[in-house]
């Protein structure tokens, strides 16, 4: 875990250096950006270790970045988790259903959905959902903390990409598993289709599936940046766009760091889940220790 994190931060420390030319000389000096890069890097790590992400320059001058970001986190977290839960449950359901009905019209319909979501830029369908679904369903067009109804559309929109991702992978892996020999044997010993599906195929399809969890997590993150600004949710995504448009370097940098950490964390969880679901991996490790 640590080994994986280190180089990333190194990358960002480096970036610090490359960001510099955008800023004015004076600020550079003040921030110590004219120091040799290894000192900068050391400073950066030092500050980071104390939980200091620097202070904002333009957005809210001289306010520590951490203070600006902290109140935003719960909003992003809430929607992020809601979207994850939605996409995981709906995506898996759709994928399993498609695999069961492979080659028939429900499968074709699901595939069209997956193609549509993957092909069309997210910005486009997000906009159209906001535009037309608010009219059709009468749901509020902007987010407001007091009205739970206004939470529905952002969360649903955010999960669309994830649903497509999960559905596509689980369908593919289930179809792969269905072609394997042990399925033949399971059927030859007289198991019913439903039982074969659930006791063999689904579980085995989950193993490669787990690897794709992090990717989908990243998709949700990207989506959240859009959605938060579209629905005026006071989360980190909206903040990032604001910070970019106002060129507030430390703030952008801090947000980028947070998003990357989430990404790394997702991958780490993926690895753990992988080890849990596949007995072969577990054994290899245990065998080495024996």
């Amino acid at each position, binding site marked *: 875990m640590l080994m994986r994190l280190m180089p990333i931060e190194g990358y960002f420390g480096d970036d610090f250096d490359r960001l510099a030319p955008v800023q004015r000389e004076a600020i550079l000096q003040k921030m110590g950006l004219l120091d040799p890069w290894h000192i900068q890097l050391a400073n950066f790590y030092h500050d980071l270790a104390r939980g200091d992400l620097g202070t904002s320059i333009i957005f809210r001058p001289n306010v520590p970045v951490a203070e600006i970001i902290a109140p935003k986190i719960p909003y992003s977290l809430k929607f992020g988790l809601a979207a994850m839960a939605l996409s995981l449950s709906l995506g898996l359901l759709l994928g399993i259903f498609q695999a069961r009905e492979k080659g028939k019209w429900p499968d074709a319909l699901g595939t069209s959905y997956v193609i549509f979501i993957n092909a069309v830029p997210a910005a486009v369908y997000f906009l159209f959902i906001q535009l037309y679904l608010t009219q059709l369903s009468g749901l509020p067009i902007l987010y407001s903390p007091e009205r739970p109804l206004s939470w529905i559309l952002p969360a649903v929109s955010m999960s669309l990409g994830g649903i497509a991702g999960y559905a596509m992978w689980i369908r593919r892996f289930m179809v792969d598993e269905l072609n394997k020999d042990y399925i033949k044997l399971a059927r*030859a*010993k007289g198991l019913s289709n439903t039982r074969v599906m659930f006791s063999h195929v689904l579980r085995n399809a989950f193993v490669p599936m787990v690897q794709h969890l992090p990717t989908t997590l990243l998709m949700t993150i990207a989506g959240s940046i859009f959605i938060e600004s579209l629905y005026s949710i006071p989360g980190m995504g909206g903040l990032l766009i604001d910070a970019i448009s106002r060129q507030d370097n430390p703030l952008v940098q801090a947000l980028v760091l947070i998003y990357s950490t989430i990404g790394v964390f997702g991958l780490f969880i993926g690895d753990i889940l992988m080890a849990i679901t596949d007995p072969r991996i577990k054994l290899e490790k245990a065998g080495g220790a024996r």
Partner: protein
Amino acid sequence: MKQPLLSVADLYIKFSLRGRVLTAIRGASLDLYAGETLAIVGESGSGKTVLTKSFVGMLDANGWVDAGFIRFAGQDLAKYRGDGQWRTIRGKKIAMVFQDPMTALNPLRTVELHTPLRGMAAKDRAIELLSQVGIALPEQRYHQYPHEFSGGMRQRVVIAIAMSCSPQILICDEPTTALDVTIQAQILDLIRRLQTEYNLTVIYITHDLGVVANVASRVAVMYAGEIVECGTSREIFYNAQHPYTWALLSSLPQLGIKGQPLFSIRGTPPNLFAEIKGDAYAPRNSYALEIDFVKRPPCFQVSPTHYARTWLLDPRAPKVEPPATIKHLRAKFVEGALCK
């Protein structure tokens, strides 16, 4: 004559592949008698696996029985549709063991979960089965994953699973091809032992004539989707009539003479997408008659248990000299007959 346990008559099985139709089985007829071991021999693509898969309704989704019947326990299996019907047969009356034990078990399931039985009594039964197929320490093995077993052990587990519902017929599809010779011998022994213990009827699919000689009481030789010759093991090995069987036997290095070239078949099997005129083997057959290119040979009865599909058995056909190896084997046949 005994009543056959399972009887196939004039079976046609077709597959549709990308808009074209492939005829995998072209009018195969076969009887299976209770308690015997029938070996089906043929090269890859001859249809031996497809034929037996149709007995348990496990043809791929793009394949179907086009004509003929499969009679078993008073029913015509060729008319079975849907998994519900097949499940009364599959595993319970007719079980199947596949070629590659390495992929036949779900890698994520322990042996326990592979057996289709549940509950305490089921556990005892499963452990009993495991010990019967020669797995040491079955209580421990019961909770292990497939990757903790060697190839031979896995094949034993697969056989135990097939035996778990006490089927009448066991179909073994090249069960030892992926195994080493020493392990192969053990598995063959095991199958033979189970057969006598449970009064099983075994269909054994293989391309290895050595294995056939070991296990079979009767042999059916398949070529291009039809059964070209069928008889008792002795009749096929020592008194073969079809030129294809001749070629198979005399091309074996075991029966060849060192330093001399083996008998060899040229060319390749016919394309099953195309319609086959006459005898499918004719273009590769050095004993082909003109009529082989025109008209499909019927089954000629050699003895009550032995028939072959070749015009050479027609009384009008010229007498031909079979390859030296075959003559050599025939001497044994005559010898054997005299001893009786």
